[in-house]
Structure formats: C-alpha cells, structure tokens
C-alpha cells in the first residue's frame, strides 16, 4: 500500500510542523478548515468520542461515555491539558461502521477535535482509526479487537487500551483448560470478533489437550438460539463457550438456561458482561463463568477509587467498558501533558513502554504495537446480596511478561520480522 503510506507520511509531517510552530499555531491551522480561531490557548481542547449509543450495544456505550466523561472531569479538575480545559464531544455511530467513519470525519473537519477516543465493536473502531490515521490524530481505542494492533491497521497514532480477543481467550482458555473437562464446544458469533475468540480458545486449549467436539456459527444479532441447542446437546460437551457479545450473549445464555444446558455442561462466556448479566437476571446467568478486564468489587486501590468516583457521579458502579474508557482517556490526556505538546510523535514517546495503573492494577504500553498489557480476571455469576453485586472474582490471570499477547512478529506484516509502529523498542 504505497499510497496509504503516503497519507500517513503527510500526517506526520503536519505533526512535525506542530513541533516547530507550537501548539497554538498548529491548532489554528487545524481549526482553519472551518473558521480561524483566535486565542487558541484558552479554547478548550476537544476530545472526539464516537459511540454506538443507539443500537444493540447502547448499554455498554452509555457506560463508556460516562467513564470517558469522568476521566475528562478529573483531568480538568487538575488543571486540564497543557493549561487548556478538555471537552468531550460525543457522537452516535448507531453501531454502523460507515456512520462511525462519517462521524469521525465530521469531528475532525468540523468540530476540530485534536484527540480521538471511543467506539465499541471492531468494525466501528477500525473505521474511526482509518479517519484518524488520514488526519494524523491520536486515537485511543477502547473496545476489543485484534486487528487494530495488527499489520495494516496499527499505526503510530493508534492506541489500544482495551484487552483484545487474543489476550482474553489465552487467559480464559488456559483457566478453563486447567479446571474443567476436555470436551469443548464453541457457539461462535459469525464475525471477526467471534472467530477470533474461538481461534484463541482453541490455541489456548491445545496445551491442555482439549478435544474440539464442534463449533456452530450463528449470525450476528440472532434473537433465538433454541435451534442451535439440539446439536450441541447431542455432542455432549463438558464446556460450552459462548463466543459472542451484547444481546447475543444475553439471549444465548438466557435460552441455554431454559433448555437445561447447564445441567449437562459448564457455560463459559469469554467476555462475561455485567450489562448482559443485569439484563438477563440472576437465574439465567447463575453459575456462568467467564473473563473480564474489570469488575467493580476488585480489591485493588485504583479500582476502588475509580468505582467510588464513578458511583458518586452516576449512581451505579462502572462496568468493564466504562473502565476501558476511563483508563484510556486518562492515558491519552495524561500522555499529552507529559509530552508537553499536543502532537502524535511526542505522545508516542511519552506513552510507549510506560507502566501505569489507572483503575485495575498494573498495565504496560507495548511499544511495538501500542497494545496495553494487562491482567484478566475470571468471574462467576452469583445471586446478588445487594444491587449490582452480581459476580464473584474467582481467579486472576496475570498478563505480565507479554504472557497473554501475541508476539510482535505475529502481528507484523512481514514473516519473521517484528512489527514496529511505535518509536521505541
């Protein structure tokens, strides 16, 4: 993709222009698409945040919005970024990738955002990432996807705070392999996210000698899973993985429970969602286990501080996706402050290789692909003693030493050579 590289190069040169002329002039040039602004330094710094507020992931998206807003408020309370107040500009993508692309373009060209975060679902974040790369705007992605830190999509502008399906499945798959039976069945949502979960689980399971007794792919947005069950029951698996997300997870767990599947096998949701658990009710999820990046009852000081601040503001505890948004935005804005100027390359220098703990324990920015290394927690659904008390943390899988991540060679484009989107090694 020579032309593509050219587009990237253009962005970098604009950024280096920033370096020489300073933030004020650079931002004026950016805002100059629309109208010339004066006194730029006192103008708020706009942080774009496209989210699928309407559509099937609306619940999670609303929590992301609240998480991002909390981070922005906290940064503003401490004096903002480079002396400027930060303003979060949210747009609705309706969970459509082309809408996400349009919105990102609008945010960049019309609103004049200088940093970008947001998006849920791989397709949406990849679309936003394309626009950010073209415009040379740093983008903090806060939803699970493998591609965004891979060849082709990863760039010096792209940051991925969330876990990706690979990390999640290495943790969950390994844990299940240790603790449960060897006959595994996969109910896979038929799109990239689902495929990646299933592939990752198979890979993780190999070390434990698991037996793959079958896989059924279901279309994204299936509302009735009953017709998938007879075949699964006939295969007599020990463990059934529900490799899906959002309403699909909710529906499949709810219906699997009503079909008495739990009596015969253990249900595992690799990405166990608090929002789906609350939406389906206690009985449907009882005994279901799975992985998560964050749960509000964690015994970690930063997690408790985050939960308290979020709860005070929104009247409910944060879910895992609120955590991604909170942690990601803190890193992005904090990174700009540490870099001392608003530009992609200094930001990369400030973040790459950084060890941090914003809300869930130790994390680390891997320089080669801008993926955040972190722990995965294993949860079990239980009857609540009080409201929102829906899970029990039964194990922690450490992510240290890149244990859960793909190697830099694996994510790269050239066989045998590590990818280098970052500046440092």
């Amino acid at each position: 993709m020579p032309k593509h590289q050219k587009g990237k190069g253009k962005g970098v040169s604009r950024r280096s222009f920033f370096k020489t002329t300073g933030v004020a002039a650079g931002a004026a040039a950016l805002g100059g698409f629309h109208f010339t602004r004066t006194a730029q330094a006192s103008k708020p710094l706009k942080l774009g945040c496209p989210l699928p507020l309407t559509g099937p992931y609306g619940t999670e998206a609303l929590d992301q919005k609240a998480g991002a807003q909390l981070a922005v408020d906290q940064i503003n309370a401490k004096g903002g970024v480079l002396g400027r107040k930060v303003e979060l500009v949210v747009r609705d993508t309706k969970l459509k990738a082309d809408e996400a692309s349009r919105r990102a373009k609008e945010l960049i060209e019309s609103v004049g955002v200088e940093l970008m975060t947001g998006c849920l679902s791989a397709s949406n974040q990849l679309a936003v990432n394309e626009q950010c790369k073209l415009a040379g705007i740093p983008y903090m992605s806060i939803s699970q996807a493998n591609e965004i830190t891979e060849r082709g999509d990863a760039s010096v502008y792209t940051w991925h705070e969330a876990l990706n399906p690979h990390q999640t499945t290495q943790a969950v798959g390994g844990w299940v392999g240790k603790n449960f039976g060897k006959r595994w069945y996969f109910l896979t949502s038929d799109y990239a996210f689902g495929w990646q979960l299933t592939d990752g689980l198979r890979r993780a399971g190999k070390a434990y000698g698991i037996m793959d007794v079958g896989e059924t792919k279901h279309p994204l947005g299936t509302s009735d899973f009953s017709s998938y069950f007879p075949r699964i029951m006939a295969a007599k698996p020990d463990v059934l993985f529900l490799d899906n997300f959002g309403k699909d997870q909710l529906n499949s767990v709810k219906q699997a429970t009503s079909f008495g599947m739990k009596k015969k096998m253990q249900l595992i949701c690799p990405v166990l969602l608090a929002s789906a658990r609350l939406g389906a009710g206690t009985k449907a999820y009882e005994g279901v286990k799975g992985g998560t990046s964050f749960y509000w009852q964690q015994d970690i000081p930063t997690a408790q501080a985050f939960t308290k601040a979020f709860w005070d503001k929104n009247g409910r505890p944060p879910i895992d996706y609120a955590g991604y948004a909170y942690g990601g935005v803190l890193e992005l804005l904090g990174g700009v402050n540490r870099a001392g100027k608003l530009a992609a390359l200094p930001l990369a220098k400030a973040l790459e290789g950084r060890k941090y703990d914003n809300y869930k324990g130790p994390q680390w920015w891997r320089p080669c692909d801008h993926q955040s290394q972190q722990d995965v927690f294993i949860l079990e659904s239980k009857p609540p003693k009080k409201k929102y008390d829906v899970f029990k943390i039964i194990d922690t899988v450490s992510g240290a030493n890149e244990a859960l991540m793909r190697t830099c060679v694996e994510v790269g484009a050239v066989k045998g050579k590590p990818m280098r989107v970052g500046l440092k090694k």
Partner: protein
Amino acid sequence: MQTQQAEVGAGAPGGAWDRVVDLVSRYPVTVITIFFIIFPFVVPYKALATQIIIWGLFALGYNVCLGYTGMLSFGHAAYFGVGAYTLGIVLIRLWENLWFGLACATFMGAFTALILGFMCIKRKGIYFALLTLAFAQLLYFLAFQWVDLTGGDNGLRHIPAVPLPLPGFTVDIQDPLRFYFLVLFFVVLALMLLQRVLQSPFGRVLEAVRENDPRARSCGYETTNVRWMAFIISGAISGLAGGLYALYLHFVGIETLYWVTSGQILMITLLGGMGSFIGPFIGAGVFLFLEDVLSAITDNWMIFLGTIFILCVLFFPEGIWGSVMKLVNRSAGKKG
C-alpha cells in the same frame, strides 16, 4: 402525478418567488449547479455538503425508479453498496486510478441492476419491493461472508487516498473543498445525462408506463423492457453514488449493503418529493442536516426525526419540493 414542467406550465408565473420556482423547473440542471457551487460556503462544514450531494445523487438514481417509473424498490442498498465495494476493491487491487474506479463502480451498479432486474422486473407493487429486498439481502450476506474480498463485518479498509489524474497533471483531492467539487462534477454530469434521457422519446414512454402500464403496452411498447432499462439507469447512478461515498470515506462499511440503507434512501426521496430533479437533493439535505444537528444536541434525536416524518406525511404528502410546487401553483392560479 403530473410532471413538474406541466404543473408549472399550467399557471402563469406571478411574483418573484413564482419566477424562481419557474426558473428551477425550466432549467433544473443549471439552477442546481449554481446552487451547489455556492452551497459548501453556507453549510456548517464542507463534509456535510459533500455527504448531502452524494446522498442526493443516490436519491436521484432511486428517483428514476420510484418517481419516474413508479417502481417501489426496497433493495437499492445493493447497487449503492456494490458501487462502493467496487471502487474500493479496484483501487486497492487493480489500479489506483480514480476515473477507472468510478467507471467500474458505475458499471457494476448497472450490471447488478441488470441481473437483479431481470429476475424482479415482472413483479409489481409490494411484491417487486420485497423481491428486490430479498436479493439485496443475499448480496449483503455474500459480502459479509466473503471476508478476503470485502473485509466482511469489519468493512473494506485501506482504500488509498489517490489524487485526481487530469491530462498533464494531478490534483490532490484530500482537501474537503476540492473533493466536494469533484463530487459536484459527477452530480452535474449525471443530471445532464439524465435530463437528456428523460426528455428523449424513451423518457415519454417511461412516463406512460408509470401512469398506465396496460395502456402503454396496448400502444405497442414493451413495458417490461422499458422498466428494466429505467432500473438499470437507476442502478448505474446509485453505483456511481456508492463509489463516490467510498472514495469520500476511504472505507466501506458492510451496512452500506444492509436493508436499512434501502429504507433510508426511500425516506429521503419521499421526504424531498418524487419525480423531480430537485426533490432528492432537498430530501438528502434536510435528512442529513437534521440528523447531524439533532444528534449533536440530544441522544434522543430520532424522536424529532420521527415527528418530522409524520408531519410531512400528514401535511406535505408530496414531499417538500412537491408541496412548494403545489403552493406556488395555487397562488399563481388565483392570480391568473
């Protein structure tokens, strides 16, 4: 339904406003061109102007089907989407040439319409609508599954930002304003060609088919073929619009092929008013502008969009442009 020329011809133009409307009806292409040259300087941002004319072009193509021939299609996402994917795939894999990419997009739009039209065209009314929907959904499924070619659910990414090759030199079109005028060039081109077609004898037959199919057939016209031809033209314009959309976003989302896109273009066309050149652009403008402005203000912007639809249906059933025409004609009639 009368054509706009006939409607205006019925009443002698009165005041200044009437004269404007009269002018628009007589020289729609010229007036639209002039208007859209000024347009990007008055909208909040240029990307919105670009979106409006791209969707306006798509609605114009759709209108050939619905407004001029009276075929309610519920599968135009197919031609738009095929155009978008074609442009992307051609630029990524075959040849990084903008003209070639857009030509392929237009051709594939027309070709898809030719194939699907062959199967659907004999059915009428709601059955035609749902058959087109069925085939469009099958295409969506195909694109969803064919990940190697289309990127599947993740969408087609990395469409290169190519410059515009002109004889002797190339123009960088990444600047929003330049890109807008590139799109406008194609819009005007499509408008001029379409005007020629509609004013030709074929255009008259089209009208006859819409108004009274059996009668047109008894006059010796092969009405099925006429409708099919109109369907192909519609597909070609939709394909071109899709190609421009892909070029604009450097990205094609799988939703472009989903039925919701077909629904949206139907709404835009009905909102603006069928059977005219102006209507689709007004519809696209109002729809996108509202969506843009309202969604920035409130999360619950759909409630306003819904209300506007209902008010339009109840009080402006001919669409915005149609209602303006009616109003002007009535006042002209009174004066005359």
